[in-house]
């Protein structure tokens, strides 16, 4: 193994397989991984001020930072705002392609906007007044490029405090399409330190598990952040093993859809 790479034992074999099959990308600090198709969708201000502008261009800076860093190793196919984005994020139109910013048109989708959760769905606020994309209307990973990772810097989308039934209500629909992992917050994620996006991408490029990279970069940006990630498995053991998925092992991760999903698992910093 080339010196200077942090790589978990879990990721080593798929790394070599993927690199050999597809051709590796690299960056000065990067563990080799096959290039992903990446999409970015973010929103700072909202139509008629129906939602809050967190100010200081925080959202645009965070998303630009992610764009700059992940773009060193992967193909960023779009960096779009969230004007009219409900349909391209929900199952009605998530396979609409990269030109319209469809969630399923990339391997990895990064978003930053306001979010929330109720007993039946997590939701992400669109630019359009009163428009929200609901996880209960999503089925991610079954169309087009088949999305594998959804990372959302927005509050409470991975709320954990209201019981397992509600957690399943909110996240079974998007995972049923084959989504491998989602990252978000079980409570507030604070605007302010937009370097968290650079560090998130950089840690993933180092071969760190995607979930761990999210937890570390988001928590270190502000110790009051509540980063969380969730994934699925055939059973509990498989779920916690799959929670270590990294960019080098991503494409070798078996896709689980519908009844193949036997367990949901998550990890978070409080």
């Amino acid at each position, binding site marked *: 193994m080339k010196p200077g790479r942090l*790589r978990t034992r879990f990721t080593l074999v798929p790394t070599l397989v993927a690199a050999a*099959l597809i051709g590796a990308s690299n960056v000065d600090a990067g563990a080799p991984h096959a290039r992903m198709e990446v999409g970015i969708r973010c929103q700072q201000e909202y139509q008629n001020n129906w939602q809050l502008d967190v100010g200081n261009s925080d959202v645009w800076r965070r998303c630009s930072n992610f764009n700059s860093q992940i773009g060193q190793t992967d193909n960023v196919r779009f960096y779009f705002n969230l004007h009219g984005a409900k349909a391209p994020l929900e199952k009605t139109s998530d396979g609409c392609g990269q030109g319209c910013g469809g969630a399923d048109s990339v391997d990895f989708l990064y978003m930053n906007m306001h979010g929330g959760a109720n007993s039946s769905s997590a939701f992400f606020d669109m630019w359009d007044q009163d428009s929200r994309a609901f996880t209960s209307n999503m089925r991610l990973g*079954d169309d087009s490029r088949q999305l594998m990772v959804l990372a959302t810097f927005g509050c409470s989308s991975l709320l954990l405090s209201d019981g397992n039934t509600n957690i399943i209500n909110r996240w079974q629909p998007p995972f049923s399409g084959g989504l491998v992992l989602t990252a978000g917050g079980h409570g507030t994620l604070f605007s302010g330190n937009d370097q968290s996006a650079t560090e998130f991408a950089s840690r993933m490029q180092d071969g760190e598990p995607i979930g761990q990279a999210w937890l570390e970069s988001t928590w270190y940006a502000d110790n009051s952040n509540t980063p969380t990630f969730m994934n699925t498995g055939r059973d509990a053991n498989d*779920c916690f093993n799959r929670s270590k998925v990294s960019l080098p092992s991503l494409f070798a991760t078996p896709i689980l859809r519908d009844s193949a999903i036997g367990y*949901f698992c998550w990890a978070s*910093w409080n």
Partner: protein
Amino acid sequence: MRTHYLAICLGLTGCLAALALPLVAQERSKLASVPILMRQREVDPASKLALLKESIPAAKAYTSEPEKLTDRIRISGSTWRLDVFGDGSGAEFADADAFERAHSSGVQPSQAMSNEALEASGRAFVERTLSRLIVLQQDEQLVLAATSRRTEGGVAPGGERAYSAVVAHRVVFSREINGIPVVGAGSKVTVTFLNDGSVESFRYDWPVYARTGRMQAMAAPIEVLHRLQRANGVRTTAAVDRALGALPNLESIAGPIKLGPTVELQDMKCGYYDPGFAIRDPAAPIQAGCYYHLLQRRGEGQYATTAGYSGAVPAAASFEPDARWPEANVLRGVKTNEPKGRQAGSSKNVQPVPPRPGAQGQ
């Protein structure tokens, strides 16, 4: 020393510990100004790396030259990584083997390490492993800043086999200088332990500070709160203004306070503001500032959302420019522009979506 802390500790959670101590009004006015500091530039990150290497068993046997990356130097093995950032004042160690063990060593919350035990373990680790890097000057103290737990959970789709465990613990220490805390990500040491006591990771940002010879007078507490409102675009009301104006001092606030009809200041801690190596301007001075968390609510019922804001506002009556301090820029009227996301469908060069390599459904 404690008097200084109280004088610029403008209230809320950061002051709670101080409230228990005797305080006379005239003491508080003694510290009308504080020195402006500079981060002293380190000169040899490689020597810092060598010191760290000697203290970490996994790294001790490493003999190759460090990898030179954009913002750090690195040595690593198959399951560990040691980075020294920038000028050498910050570093991070991560042990992937320990991360792998975290799940299997999970315990019920009732069996998890207490905060007292966590602090003691953290202090022992800093003393044992980092004592040549985390150097305290005569007027400095290492103080507990925060603790956190990493938890795991899971459940089957039908609600069976629910699982919950604490898998790791994190302790953060900070620095006080003459009793004045350093707020922000600078001057922090974070150690992460598994339940079995082994170290999963540590990270620090521990510069040497030097006095610039310049002093800055402190702003009135109410002015700091008004700055916080302005920097975050909070629309206040007459009732809120009256309530804020009626505060005898900010130390009297024991919990969240309203800054606007739907805006609450959750906490604020004041001291020297150092945002840390990742976001600070190396040439900028270390000035008085108040680090805050603020929540603004919008909507009601099942679609209510909460926006969280964190950052720092200048606490000096007149503060020096700092191009990387967003609130200071807003208050000074400096505008910044960032590339915004484009409208979907606006690109004329749209390629078909390539198939994912090896995509298979099950």
